[in-house]
């Protein structure tokens, strides 16, 4: 078939357009020279690249820490690479694939195993963690090797809005004795009395609260062998959420699904649509600033009605890792050590990355914390007797649990599938994701 010129041009431009899709997935590892970005020794100085995701405050703090470090160590030159959470991971994966990972990497629990088990992270065994609170070091260990140093302690909990509880003319619940069922009762009551859509928002988004639920049932989210729970626990959780939905405590399925993609400043508790919402402790300051009132921090419920049996843990809000391809591994480790163990760094960053795990450092900066950060520090201290064993980091593929639990859960809430079937699909998909 002879194409005329017009047809040829249309076809050619179409193919060119189609071809752009395939630029994806086309970068071979280590093909481009190797070495870290900005790495090497320029003009006699040891240079390091440091990447983090964050917010304006964190960007300012981090840059100030870099400047302070360079002043104290004139032979080191650090280039900062700030980013926002979503694009940060795309960029880090691409940089790592190209052998150009930054020397110092701000790491998240969801991804540490993806990089750690594949040999992309440096052994940080030489970083001094002797003054860290018990249980805060282990989360950075992959196969027994420390590849991430806890940068701040965090804990999953529930924020409650004093304004909404006041409007409902109700007292704040006693979070030391409340059970999961009471959470539904209180949520339903406060939602109807105050006339807000959510008694409790975002439970389905929380793999962390699901984690405590599973642990209270005697299982774990993940073990060395893979998935630590099975269909019965997942089904119990979906049954529970459905029960809360029927009692009008957790919002309608539409509202739950709408809430999921919202940024913090549009979230239900901030705009006054929820009495309670799932959050992490380090977000208190940001939520307070956005909402114009400081939420009360409530412990997650337990099956037994005893806070000491709720099996929570100190989560690393984020960690510091270093690239195994770094040209200056010692300098990278020195910086992480400086962050973890000197007041110089902590005096700048305070509790922005979570409560410092180093007890001496915490004592040093405590008086300088903002009022919200002081509340968080006290909360973290208060729950010390309730903290159980630190769970292992999610293995490769395990980071998907957040999206998978939500996706099948929303099908259950919409009544498209039964809790039993939804739980089975959830568990099956997780098992297959872990088989990478």
């Amino acid at each position, binding site marked *: 078939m002879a194409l005329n010129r017009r047809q040829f041009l249309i076809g050619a431009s179409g193919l060119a357009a189609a071809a752009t899709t395939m630029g994806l997935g086309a970068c071979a590892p280590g093909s481009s020279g190797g070495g870290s970005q900005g790495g090497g020794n320029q003009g006699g100085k040891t240079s390091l690249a440091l990447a983090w995701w964050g917010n304006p405050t964190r960007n300012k703090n981090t840059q100030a820490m870099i400047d302070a470090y360079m002043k104290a160590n004139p032979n080191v030159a650090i280039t900062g690479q700030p980013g926002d959470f979503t694009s940060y991971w795309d960029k880090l994966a691409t940089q790592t694939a190209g052998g150009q990972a930054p020397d110092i990497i701000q790491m998240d629990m969801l991804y540490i195993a993806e990089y750690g088990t594949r040999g992309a992270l440096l052994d940080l065994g030489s970083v001094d963690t002797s003054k860290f609170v018990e249980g805060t070091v282990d989360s950075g260990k992959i196969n027994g090797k420390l590849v991430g140093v806890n940068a701040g302690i965090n804990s999953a909990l529930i924020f409650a809005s004093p304004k909404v509880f006041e409007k409902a003319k109700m007292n704040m619940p006693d979070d030391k004795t409340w059970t999961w069922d009471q959470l539904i009762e209180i949520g339903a009551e406060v939602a109807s009395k105050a006339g807000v859509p959510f008694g409790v928002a975002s439970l389905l988004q929380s793999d962390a609260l699901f984690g405590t639920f599973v642990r209270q049932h005697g299982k774990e989210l993940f073990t060395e062998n893979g998935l630590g729970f099975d269909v019965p626990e997942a089904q119990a959780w979906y049954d529970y959420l459905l029960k809360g939905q029927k009692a009008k405590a957790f919002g309608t399925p539409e509202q739950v699904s709408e809430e999921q993609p919202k940024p913090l400043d549009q979230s239900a508790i901030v705009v006054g649509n929820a009495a309670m919402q799932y959050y992490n402790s380090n977000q208190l300051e940001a939520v307070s600033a956005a909402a114009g009132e400081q939420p009360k921090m409530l412990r997650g419920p337990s099956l037994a009605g005893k806070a000491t049996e709720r099996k929570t843990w100190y989560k690393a809000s984020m960690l510091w890792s270093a690239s195994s391809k770094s040209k200056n591994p010692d300098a990278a480790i020195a910086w992480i050590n400086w962050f973890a163990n000197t007041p110089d760094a902590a005096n700048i960053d305070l509790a922005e990355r979570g409560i410092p795990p180093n007890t001496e450092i915490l004592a040093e900066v405590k008086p300088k914390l903002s009022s919200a950060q002081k509340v968080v520090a006290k909360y973290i201290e208060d729950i010390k007797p309730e903290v159980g064993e630190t769970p292992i980091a999610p293995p*490769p593929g395990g980071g998907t649990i957040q999206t998978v639990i939500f996706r099948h859960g929303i099908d259950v809430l919409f009544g498209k599938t039964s809790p039993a079937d939804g739980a089975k699909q959830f568990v099956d998909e997780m098992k297959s994701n872990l088989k990478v």
Partner: protein
Amino acid sequence: MSAISELSTIHRAKAKTPEEKRLLAKEAGRDNKAGYLFLLPWLIGLVLIIGGPMIASLYLSFTNYSLIQAPEWVGLANYARMFDDPRLHKSLAVTFTYVLVGVPLQLIAALAIAILLNEGMRGLPFYRSVFYLPSMLGSSVAIAVLWRQMFEVDGLVNQILRKFGIPATTSWIGDPQYALWTIILLHVWTFGSPMVIFLAGLRQIPGMYYEAASVDGASRWAQFRKITLPLLSPIIFFNLVLQIINAFQAFTQAFVVSNGTGGPADSTLFFTLYLYQRGFVQFQMGYAAAMAWLLVVIIAAFTAINFYFSKRWVFYGD
């Protein structure tokens, strides 16, 4: 066969004696050289920026590649896995719905507005710009965020419906039944670029055809069907092919509206979004590369079908 060598073939066919043929062939060779020289910048770009990565991507599609470790050859395993990947099938269904509904609606809207604008009203450049505007904004993150807020339970759309006494409580983006349709609507709204092309095409149709037709008493509808549509058919075909190719690769809107999840309940899980999730969220770049090749095959097939059927309805007038 390239357009250039096609031309030289025609020349050669006209040559009579061997001497003439030799001369013409030499001349054609020179022409070709000049032509390829002009094409060179594009060719270099094609080879380095598109060709190289395409070959790499084809190779990676036969490997297990986590981005972090070196790729490991697995043969056709990635392609075989596609057969029992329910989310892949779901993403294909979502994407086909989007393309097969969104593209025709968008082209109809573009053509309708182009015809209106072609009536020679005053202030045409202004209206043309206003209608073109959504095309430039439509694939931006800001508009997608705005879209999400408009179609919420208490969003602008429901508030307007309530003003008219309709008790609207549906979350258009939260309900899996409707979420995809809000994104299709966003796609239709960005009718500007095909509209501008239609408008240019309408300007090319000589006015005398319409004059003659109205003298013969043809109605407006008959004029549209017998004059406008046939003479515009190459432009319609051009827009159809390009918009289908574009729509298959839609990504931004779904990514922003669902925060990268393709939710609620995978109802907006576009093929490209799933590809992204596999590659960058689950670190399965080999599988993602295989998916990209499946998309290429699908787009190529659609384009071929388009060209095949174009013979029946596209009228080039020559």
